[in-house]
Every structure is written in C-alpha cells, then in structure tokens.
C-alpha cells in the first residue's frame, strides 16, 4: 500500500505539493488527476525518491522512501512520463539489465521476460536495439521493465501516451489484472476515460492541493453534479468551464 501523510514540497516560493495526504490500499487502482502544473509529476517523483519533501512522510508497503529508499523502490514498478532507455541495448538486454537492478535471478528474468514479450506481442522485436523502436514500442519496453519484478506497487505517469489502440487495451487489461492480484496502482493521467474505466478511487489535485477524493459517485456528490461524467466533473472542479467559455467566445477573425 501507499501512504502519503501531510506531504509538502516547495520549489523556492512555489508550493508544488501542499499538505497532501493519501492512503491507497492493497489491490486498489488509484487515479491521480489534475491540470498541467498541478503537482502530479512532483508527487510521483516524491514517491519514487527523485525529489524529497520538506515535510510529511511517504511509505511504500511500509518502507519510508527517505529512510529506507532501496526497500521502498524494490517493491515499486515505475513508468515515468518520459522514460529513459539505453538506446543501444536490445529490449531483451534492457530487461536483463533492469532485472539485475532489482536483484532478480537470471532464470527468473528469463521466464518473466519471455512471458512479458509474448504478452505485449513483441516477439519479433526483442533482439533489435531500442533506438530502432517507435514511441509505442519503447513504451511497451518500459511497461515490461516495470512489470518484470512483479511489483507490489505500480506507479505510472501518463500510461497511455503514444500507445496504439491494441496496446492501450492491453495495458488497461494488465493494470486490471495486476490490481485484482493485489498490486497497488497509482496512475496519473489526462485520459479521463481511462481513469473512469479503471480506477477504484480518484484524487483531483489543483495547485498542489487535493481538491477532490473518492469514487466517481462520491466525486459527483462532492461537486453537486448529478449524472455528470468525469470530464465535466473535472472541468467543474478545476475551473475548466471558464476557459472553455473563453475559447467558445474567441473571435478568430
């Protein structure tokens, strides 16, 4: 599970994450939504040890990310928004490399790799260098590396960017499968339909503050908006309609 307790992160005078508290249970798929610059990626970087909060505590399956970072990361699979891949390695070599970083035995790496390649339909590509892959293919490699060590927590920043419809479907199914197996999924996304379809609970963040938290129904009642879909709710809570009206009233000459 993931626990964020009164987490605050500042960059100079700007508060990127403001007193954020979250508790995400085992097997829960959690959607983290917010407009650009709301603090989503900062929160994810705090959870993966790539930034350090000024105050508050973050625990991944009971391990404090500051006090015991290696243990916390060992339990985490992370898919960043713009992932780094060793361009000159093949997908197979890249997964062998990543598996080594997670202390996996060569046999386990091999069996997991074969399973994941098969699952993602990458069989014909695995021995080509990553530099030859399309954006979607790279994204598949990154997903494979995140799933490789069977993480207890999966943190995904914008999971569907650049994926073709088949891969999108596959990732959704995989996220559901892992979630049903007890993996915690923490997903930041702008694709609201994905959040609507997959997430058990949704948190909406705006200017670093959590302004909404709950199931879709709970969010509806919070926003006093009967029958609204997630997009209208999201826009209502983050000040979207005002901007939408501006666009509607704009005169392009």
């Amino acid at each position, binding site marked *: 599970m993931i626990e964020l307790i009164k987490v605050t992160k500042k960059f100079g005078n*700007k508060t990127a994450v403001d007193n954020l508290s979250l508790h995400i249970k085992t097997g829960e798929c959690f959607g983290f939504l917010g407009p650009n610059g709301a603090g989503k990626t900062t929160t994810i970087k705090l959870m*993966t040890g790539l930034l350090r909060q000024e105050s508050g505590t973050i625990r991944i399956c009971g391990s404090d990310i500051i006090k015991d*970072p*290696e243990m916390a990361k*060992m339990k985490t699979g992370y898919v960043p928004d713009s992932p*780094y891949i060793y361009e*000159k390695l093949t997908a197979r070599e890249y997964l062998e*490399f990543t598996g080594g*970083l997670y202390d996996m035995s060569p046999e386990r790496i091999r069996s997991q790799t074969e399973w994941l390649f098969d699952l993602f339909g990458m069989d014909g590509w695995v021995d080509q260098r990553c530099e030859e892959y399309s954006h979607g293919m790279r994204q598949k490699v990154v997903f494979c590396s995140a799933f490789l060590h069977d993480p207890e927590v999966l943190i995904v920043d914008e999971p569907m960017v650049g994926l073709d419809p088949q891969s999108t479907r596959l990732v959704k199914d995989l996220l559901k499968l892992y979630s049903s197996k007890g993996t915690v999924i923490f997903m930041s996304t702008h694709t609201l339909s994905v959040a609507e379809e997959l997430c058990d609970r949704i948190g909406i963040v705006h200017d670093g503050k959590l302004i909404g938290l709950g199931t879709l129904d709970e969010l509806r009642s919070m926003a006093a908006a009967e029958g609204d879909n997630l997009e209208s709710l999201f826009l209502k809570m983050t000040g979207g309609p005002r901007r939408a009206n501006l666009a509607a009233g704009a005169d392009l000459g």
Partner: protein
Amino acid sequence: MPREPILDKSLHIMHYKTVSARSFLGNLDAEVVMKILVGLFVVSCFFTGSLFFFYKIFSYLGGLRDIGFLLMNKLVSLGFLAIFMMLVISNIITSISTLYRSRETAFLLSTPTAYQKVFTVKFIDNIFFSTWAVLLLGLPLILAYGMVRGFVLWEYLFEIFCVLLPFVIIPACIGVSFSILMFLASRYLSPRQLIITLGSLIVLGVIVYFKIGQPSSLAFNVISDWRVLNRYLGSMGATSFAFLPSFWVSETLRTIASGGRHSLLVYMLALISTTLMFLNVTFKFAGRYYYDSWLASAEHHGKDSRVKQATKRRARFFRLPEWLPSDFRAVLSKDLKLFVREPAQWAQFTVLLVLLAIYLVNLKYFPTDVEDSYWKTLIGFGNFAFSGFILATLSVRFVYPNISLEGKSFWAIASSPMRLRRVFWVKFWAAFSIFVLISEVLAFVSNLMLGLRGMLMALTFFSVLLMSISLTSLSIGLGAIFPRFEERNPGKIASSMGGMLATIISLAYVGVMVVIAALPANRYTLHKMNPDLPFPMFEVMLSIALILILNLTAITVPLRLGLSSMRRRDY
C-alpha cells in the same frame, strides 16, 4: 534482505554500459565510420605534429649546456601543472552533466540501487569523459620528453601508465567533490551568487598560479638574458608546488632519467597513497552528500522560472534592430536569450574573459623597451600564436555547440519556411560579431602592452580578423557535421569526439597560420637588420597566397559540409 557487496550493482551497470558501447561500435553505419576515420586521421596528424614539435623543442633544450635539462624539467613541470588544473576544471564541468543532469542518473536513482553505487558508476564515467581529451593533448609532451631523454619505450610507457592513472584520479576527486559542494550550496545561494563565488575562486587560483609560478617571467628570462636564467630557475625551486601531484609526476619523470630508483619509488608511492586517500575521502563524502546534492540539482529544474521584471528589462536590452529580417531576428534573439538564461554558459564565458584579462595584465612583465627587431618580431608572433590558441579555445567552447544546442527542438526551425542556409548565416554572424570584437580587443591591447606598433600591429589586426572568420566557420561547420542534439550541456558537446576534432583542426589551423606568416616576417626582419640581404618578395607573395588559400578553405569547406550534413539529416 541480504545486501550484496558494494561493487556488485556498479559492476552490473558497467557491464551493460559496455554491452551498449559494443553494440554502438558493432552497428556503425558507413557515414559514422567515415567520420570516425577522418577524426582518427586528424587526431593522428595532430598527435604526430605535436610530438614532433615537442621533440624539437626538447632536443633543442637538451643541447644547451648546463641549463638545458634543468629548463626542460621546469617546462615539463609547468606542463603537468597546467594539465592538472585543466583536469580539475574539466571534471567540474563534466560532472554537471554526468552526475547531475544525465537522464541515466535519474533513471538509476529511481531503481533500488544504492546511491553510492550510482555514484561509483557515474564517477568512472566522469573520469573517462573529462580526461581523454586532456590526456590526448598532453601525451605528446610526455612521449617527446621520454624520446629526448632516451628512455626504453615500453618501460617508459609502463611507468607513465602507473603514474598517470593516479594523476587523473586526484583531479577527478577534487572536481567531483567540488561539484557536490556547489550543488549543496545551491540550496542556499542563487545561481548568480554561486557562479560569482565559483568564478572568484577560479580567478583567485589563477592569480596565485601566475604570482607563484610566474610563467611569463620564465619566458621573459629566456628571451632577455640567459645569464639570469640559472638564478631564476633556482628561485623557482621553492615555488614549484611541491605539494601538488603534478610536481610528483614531473619529478618521477626526472628521476626515471637520472636512474634514481629510490626517489622514483618515493614519488610513485606518494602519488598512489594520495590517490587512495582522495578516493577514500571523496567516496565517504559522496556517500553522505551526493544524493542530497542530486536532489538539490533536481529541484532547480522545478523552481519558479517565470520571467521576472528584471529579465524582461534585459530582454528589451537585447531587442534587435527592426531592419534585420524577421526570421533572422527571431533566431538571433532566441539564441541570445537562451545564452543569458543559462548560467553555465555565461559563467564560463565570464571566467574565460577574466582569464584573458589576466593574460593581458600579465603581459606587463614583458620588456616593452626591446629595440631589437628580431626579438620584437618573435614577441609579436609569440603573442599572435597565443592569441590564436585562446581564440581557437573560445570558438570551440562557445561557437561549436551552437547547432547542437538547438537540441530536439530543431524541428521547429527545420519545419519552418526559414531555409537552413539562413539558419547557418544567423549562427555565423551572431558568433562572429561577438568573436571578432573580443579578438580585436585582445590583439590591440596585447600589442599595446608589448609595445608593438605600426606594421606588426596592423598585421596582427588583419590576421586576427581572418582568424575570427575562419575559426567561426570551422566551429559552425564542424558543429553541424557532428551535432549532438540530445546533449544540453555545451561543455560536454565541446568535449565530444566532434568537439575534439574541432579543437585539433582549429589549433592546427592557428599553427599553420602562424608558421605561414612567420616565415616571411623572419626574412623581412633579417633584411631590416642587414640591408645587404634582399627583400624577401617571393616569400611575402607566397605567404599571402598561402594565407588566402588556407583561409578560403577554412571558411568555405566546413560551412558547405556542415550545411549538406544538416540537409541530409532527419528531424
């Protein structure tokens, strides 16, 4: 969970980096192979040329009775001190990208790899990237020394390896520790304050070096009076930085020559033990503070970077005249703003300008009342050569990365109606106009300080103008042939394979320019001293023709090749 020994994961990462490098080398396309071969050829030419140059100098010095070897040792000692300082600076600059801004570092830190192990891998990377180019430039000096002293080659190479390995590790420890401190301090100081502090420290170091080492005094003594040289060299004994590893290396070389095995062992042990001590301290320090400093550097990227009022005022300062074509203005104005908003860029630029100022101030030690035409010409050409060396360094450091710095956003220009040729011209004129200003000021002030007037000054002015055009073209052209769009650190772009090639070609160009201009000038000076000798009309005409051919080639060929390379590229 059981913890594995400290090096396991570092070795695992290093192994896959090697696999990656092998894959790169095993899958080179024809164009890259061609570029590497050309690069190797130029590097070999440069290497052979410098080896020959140093061999000649050392042979000449070796032939001087009494003081020859003494002078040679002092020169080697000064050379190693310069290499040591360059290595420290190079390690600091390189560490900003390898240890901090590299995406690989962020990736490794997001995995369950201990920070110390990530540091170990990146520290080795840093030594490699910051050292190879400096060593390549320094190796001819070391080999030439061994050849003149008649050392057995393989024995000498082995001893050099034993000495050089610790010699490059110590500056790496100093440079990297300094970077860690700098990023830790960045939590409390603004980039501007930090850069000013850093710049001041470097300037202070250089002033101390000039005050204690007095390299200009060495030159002064060499050219003015041989009799005082012994006294001078004797006085230098106490100020040769006996506590610095560069001194131990040069002393090691000296003791190899004199066959003093006991002293050799002492200096080698001093080097090795100091290296181990530095490694120990650096790794302990990094183990405690590297991750903190990395976090501090990561936080800088997230800071509120909204353009403040003062910055807006500065932007108005850079507003370009309306008569310039709009696309020309757009690219030029963007380049200027990016330069000003990148502290690493203007900080290094300022440090280099300060170094130039120190060089100019230091020229006051030279005698300005020399009446002898021969010495006047020699001083003039010495200054011309040194100015050329500085200009070549400046152009590679600041002009060469220009095309690469467009980065992955080059598609925005490439897909616009602006033609690539025009982009090239904007880059050229922007760099040239600043470059020629610095060059001519340098030429004017240095000539003034050296008391050189009239014909010599006019000649320097004209040559420096030609040099500015050619060096700008070389850097822009080669920067386009070997662009590194994925790299954001200009220092690292300049120290890449292409940057190294640009450095070597620029230095070779400066060397050839000086030689072509010096030969007829020498004859002319002899003619002035002895009017019985004929006016060297043929030499003068030949020299002018050669200078024209050399500069036309240096201006047109790189720009054409660069442009066609950019046209063939996908964005």
